[in-house]
């Protein structure tokens, strides 16, 4: 009798183990097809899609977990973790791990991904004029952009700490972080706007004219200096980030050491360089690395401002062009890998820094 039940149980388990995942797959695929091809009004469509997306994911976990709960304790303990991490791992494997490996392989293939070409794509990066200028510009972005963001952030954080409107000032400086890079692009395009004639409607040109200078089309004039005007946008957006983190660091500087230095007659500037900067070293490093990673991947700003014309291409925009306009998979993949290689050391450094400060995995 006991053996019959366990056999019966075994059949039942097999049945639900196959049925539940299959049903999940079928039902969600049916809903997907219905939503994709259905002719619904946009609002109704949006509401249905949101409900499906959110409830759907939850029911997948719920139903799969229900199946696992039918198993014996021993098996449940083995399988349940897979239900919990499984979806995450499948998505990560599909969307990040596998593509990275594939892109790596494609970077050794020719433009249509048919023949193996060895390192010639990598060689092209340092010989091809377009790719080389993208690299050079990206370097300019990383060096100048990061330096300006961090130093501006530091100055503002110190000033805000001593001002009478700290909160307001921080909100104002920080606000651009919430704005998309596309919208920021529009904002700055308007600031830089150039109109032939004497009445300028772009703020920068109006100021230049008022000071007796001559109006310019800033995003396209004397290359490669026009890149600087794009980098300003990055500084405008990212300084807030540096400021928030550095400001938190400044609050942690012990009052006594500052007081002691003042008693000794040290000037504020000396205190800034001799006490504050050494104290903030860790924060400055992690802010710097974070902004470097962000800047290495800069894309939207350049795309909206110039589309990469006038010699303003960076690696990410050049990558986009190689793939989608010139259809050169080899160059495109190589550029992506170059980005990856540039980011790895910075990010490892950054993660270590975060770990040292006690956040996360330990």
């Amino acid at each position, binding site marked *: 009798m006991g053996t019959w039940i366990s056999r019966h149980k075994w059949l039942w388990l097999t049945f639900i183990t196959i049925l539940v995942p299959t049903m999940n797959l079928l039902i969600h695929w049916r809903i997907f097809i219905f939503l994709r091809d259905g002719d619904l009004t946009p609002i109704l469509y949006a509401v249905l899609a949101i409900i499906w*997306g959110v409830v759907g994911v939850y029911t997948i976990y719920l139903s799969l*977990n229900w199946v696992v709960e039918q198993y014996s304790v021993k098996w449940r303990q083995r399988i349940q973790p897979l239900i919990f991490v499984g979806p995450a791992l499948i998505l990560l494997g599909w969307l990040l791990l596998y593509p990275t490996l594939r892109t790596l392989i494609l970077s050794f293939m020719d433009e249509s991904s048919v023949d193996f070409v060895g390192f010639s794509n990598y060689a092209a990066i340092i010989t091809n004029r377009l790719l080389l200028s993208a690299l050079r510009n990206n370097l300019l972005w990383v060096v100048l952009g990061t330096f300006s963001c961090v130093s501006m952030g530091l100055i503002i954080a110190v000033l805000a700490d001593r*001002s009478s409107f700290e909160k307001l000032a921080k909100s104002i*400086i*920080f606000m651009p972080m*919430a704005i998309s890079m596309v919208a920021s692009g529009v904002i700055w395009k308007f600031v830089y706007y150039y109109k032939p004639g004497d009445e300028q409607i772009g703020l920068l040109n109006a100021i230049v004219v008022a000071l007796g200078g001559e109006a310019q089309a800033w995003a396209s004039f004397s290359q490669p200096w026009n890149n600087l005007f794009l980098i300003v946008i990055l500084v405008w957006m990212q300084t807030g980030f540096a400021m928030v983190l550095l400001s938190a660091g400044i609050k942690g500087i012990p009052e006594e050491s500052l007081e002691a230095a003042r008693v000794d007659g040290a000037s*504020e500037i000396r205190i800034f360089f001799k006490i504050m900067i050494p104290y903030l070293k860790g924060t400055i490093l992690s802010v710097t690395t974070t902004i470097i990673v962000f800047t290495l991947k800069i894309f939207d700003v350049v795309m909206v401002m110039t589309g990469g014309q006038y010699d303003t291409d960076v690696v990410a925009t050049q990558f986009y062009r190689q793939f989608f306009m010139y259809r050169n998979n080899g160059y495109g993949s190589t550029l992506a890998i170059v980005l990856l290689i540039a980011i*790895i050391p910075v990010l490892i450094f950054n993660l270590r820094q975060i770990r040292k400060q006690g956040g996360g995995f330990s």
Partner: protein
Amino acid sequence: MKRRQKKKGSKWLVNGILGFICLIWIIPTAGLFVSSFRPAADILETGWWTVFPHKGWETEEQMTLPKDTDLKEPIEVSGVNYSDEQLKQGVTTTEGQKLVWQNRRGRIIDVQEKQWKTNAVFTLDNYKNVLGGKNYEITQSDGSIKIEKGSNLTRAFVNTLTVAIPATIIPVLIAAFAAYAFAWMKFAGRKTIFVIVVALLVVPLQVALIPVLQNFTALGLNGTYLGIWIAHTGFGLPLSTYFLYSYISQLPRDLFESAFMDGASNFTIFTKLILPLSVPSIASIGIFQFLWVWNDYLVSLVFIGSQPNVQVLSMRIAEMVGSYGNDWHLLTAASFVSMIMPLAVFFALQKYFVRGLMGGSVKG
């Protein structure tokens, strides 16, 4: 607090410099905001700052010169001689008036004086225009009327919400399940797998785009909501998992033990205990992910492509920059529409946003 009150003199200086920097920071956005309410023709004629009181030339009276005035000869106006070229450009007289041709053929001259004035004409037309899909009449600077098709950002706004809400909740939910398992469940290769997940933080999006795009095309997911949700979920997972893990793993062990004693399963513990307890950190990473998805341009550009029904705000605006580069009345209003949501989230939930940002600083 003492050191902040110490030097009264330097405090003025500090406030002054900081105030100046804040002004520089806010002016570009303020310009966009003001312009978005100005009539189309005005935006192109005068700078947005002229809506504030300023001194400008205002026509006081008109003078008609004799019809037979020879334009090649010096032209006499109230006893002083001017050349035709000077009058074209506008010339300042000794009394501080400005003379400029109003109608050269009719020999009519505008006599202008510097006066305080404002160009404070505001309208909601730009917003009506970008939000609605109908046609709008726009009076241009020369008085002619141009018919323009509205750009129907309402649709793009709804689309962006439809993309952003699930693309925020799904990855955070999946990440929370995974983070719980990494923190509190035992399984083979737990540590190794976790390290791999964190390592994926370094992968720049660009690396993943093409292979995923090919898969999506094969599966018919390209240009669908499901496709873009999956993409955002995958790209957001390493960070969300890492972020939530660092929170969930710090929860006290006793919590779990007593719950297990009561016979609760992992699933119950997770949904009834861990999720409610993790609300602050879920809020932080959720806000961060939401803003990231809302503001994203590259992922949408690649996976939605030109599907007009699914297009999100950032794509529409980037497209408008390309096709109506000089129609500032549309661009300014459209950008502001796209900024409303992130700015609202930012000001309402600044505390969580800052926390998410500090943890989210390594997003790949």
